[in-house]
């Protein structure tokens, strides 16, 4: 499973179609991948595993999200004022 994920990350071109978000408005797609990246990091570090599969979520949200949002959220995470559940 980990090798398949590394293959996918190496061959990454852009965010794939996500059936959870089929419409033109992809805001929630962006936000969900950002949350999933941080949740994945948190879950795998508490389990003591390598967090490299989480790179997939980071690539997807970097493709989808406007940079200003990512910077704002990263700032909020550092301050501790991020409103999402991680």
């Amino acid at each position, binding site marked *: *499973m980990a090798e398949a*994920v590394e293959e*996918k990350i190496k061959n990454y071109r852009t965010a*794939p*179609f996500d*059936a*959870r*978000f*089929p*419409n033109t408005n992809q805001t*929630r797609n962006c936000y*969900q991948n950002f949350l*999933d990246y941080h*949740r*994945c990091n948190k*879950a*795998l570090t508490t389990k003591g595993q390598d967090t490299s*599969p*989480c790179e*997939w*979520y980071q690539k997807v949200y970097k493709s989808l999200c406007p940079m200003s949002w990512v910077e704002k959220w990263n700032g909020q995470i550092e301050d501790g004022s991020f409103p999402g*559940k991680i």
Partner: protein
Amino acid sequence: MLATVAKQLRSHPALIPLFLFIGGGATMSVMYLARLALKNPECSWDRKNNPEPWNNIEPNHQYKLFKVNMDYSKLKKDRPDF
């Protein structure tokens, strides 16, 4: 009030198709709104027990009514587990 309408309909039966079409249109609008409220995975009613309903659907679940150039049966889960 319904009795008045029924009486008027009996004297002007040509109004019946009007009621049928208006009624049909109103029913379709209400049904679409109900589908949007209940079936749309983006709509979260129960924030405590089901906060992110879009995460509970299959990777090949089709929500749209019509699909163009998209084969939903070929989709698989492609996100890493954690």
